[in-house]
């Protein structure tokens, strides 16, 4: 027996990224803009979507990623928005995030011909989803004020990868000790100048702005003729 050193120099996530590119090509072919929506569990992703959807003039579909259950997709379905539930357990080992391969497996059940915008609601988790591209055009995340000021500093990988950060649950501010300016300052340190929208899914504050942001993402693709 002898030992050989094999030089590789390959991104460990190369296999995922290759499938993510294939997903992206399929979305592009159908002219569908894809938003990968991420947050900690319970930050209000589904509640915000319930408030914001459906959109005027933009046909939206939702892919719900959860470890198990169809709680979120049932809520979205009641809005008469096409929704597909993707569970990471069983079949994908109960993963705490969506990866490109899981999203690929859901492609046949997505009505890509009938939508302009697909929102992929990732599994609630501030860590792993940041590592795995799924074929999205843009990443957005929700951070609720109940999570405290320091989350951007603790999870910089996720906060840095987002092009939009929605600060949710503003209605709870009077009951909390959180220093909102400090949260925004920490966010700016990790992702300088990132676009942000201040919302309350409960009162509807800021939801129009979120709606406009989503519509503009789809419209910018249409305008570019992609």
């Amino acid at each position, binding site marked *: 027996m002898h030992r050989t050193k094999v*030089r*590789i*120099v390959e991104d*460990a996530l*190369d296999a995922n990224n290759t499938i993510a590119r294939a997903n992206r090509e399929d979305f592009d072919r159908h002219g569908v803009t894809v938003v990968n929506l991420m947050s900690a569990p319970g930050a209000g992703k589904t509640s915000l979507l319930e408030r914001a959807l459906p959109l005027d003039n933009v046909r939206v579909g939702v892919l719900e990623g959860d470890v198990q259950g169809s709680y979120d997709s049932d809520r979205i379905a009641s809005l008469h928005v096409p929704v597909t539930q993707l569970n990471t357990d069983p079949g994908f080992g109960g993963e*705490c995030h969506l990866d490109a391969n899981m999203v690929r497996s859901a492609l046949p059940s997505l009505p890509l011909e009938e939508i302009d915008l697909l929102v992929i609601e990732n599994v609630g988790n501030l860590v792993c989803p940041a590592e795995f591209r799924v074929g999205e055009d843009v990443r957005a995340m929700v951070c609720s004020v109940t999570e405290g000021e320091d989350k951007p500093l603790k999870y910089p990988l996720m906060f840095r990868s987002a092009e939009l950060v929605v600060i949710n649950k503003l209605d709870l501010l009077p009951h909390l000790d959180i220093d909102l300016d400090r949260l925004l300052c920490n966010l700016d340190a990790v992702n300088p100048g990132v676009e942000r929208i201040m919302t309350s899914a409960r009162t509807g504050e800021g939801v129009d702005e979120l709606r406009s942001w989503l519509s503009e993402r789809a419209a910018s693709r249409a305008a570019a003729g992609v």
Partner: protein
Amino acid sequence: MHEMSIAGAIVATALKHAGDGRVTSVRVRAGRLRQVVPDSLRFYFEIVTRDTPCEDARLELIEVEPRLCCHACGREWKPLFPSFRCPDCASADVSVLAGEELEVESIEVEERESACTGQR
């Protein structure tokens, strides 16, 4: 917990290049901005390599310090905490020069020299 996903990705990459041999060591470069916890990664590496040709392989982890560069004033620096604004001119036009790597650099493979000749 993201170390488990990363360990799986590392092992898959190593196996892709291992041929028929047994992998005895895997060398990985991980930038500190990826927030990989070395002990946790080693723990999961041991688990995900079980019953694969990577079983008992040594994980050699090289941690890469982050280095940032400001396009506005040209300053290069090593950030101490996750701050991505230039400490001199406060510009947001900053790129990461190092610290975001997560790559399998090389593997060491033990080849069974004669075992395969009769099998094929």
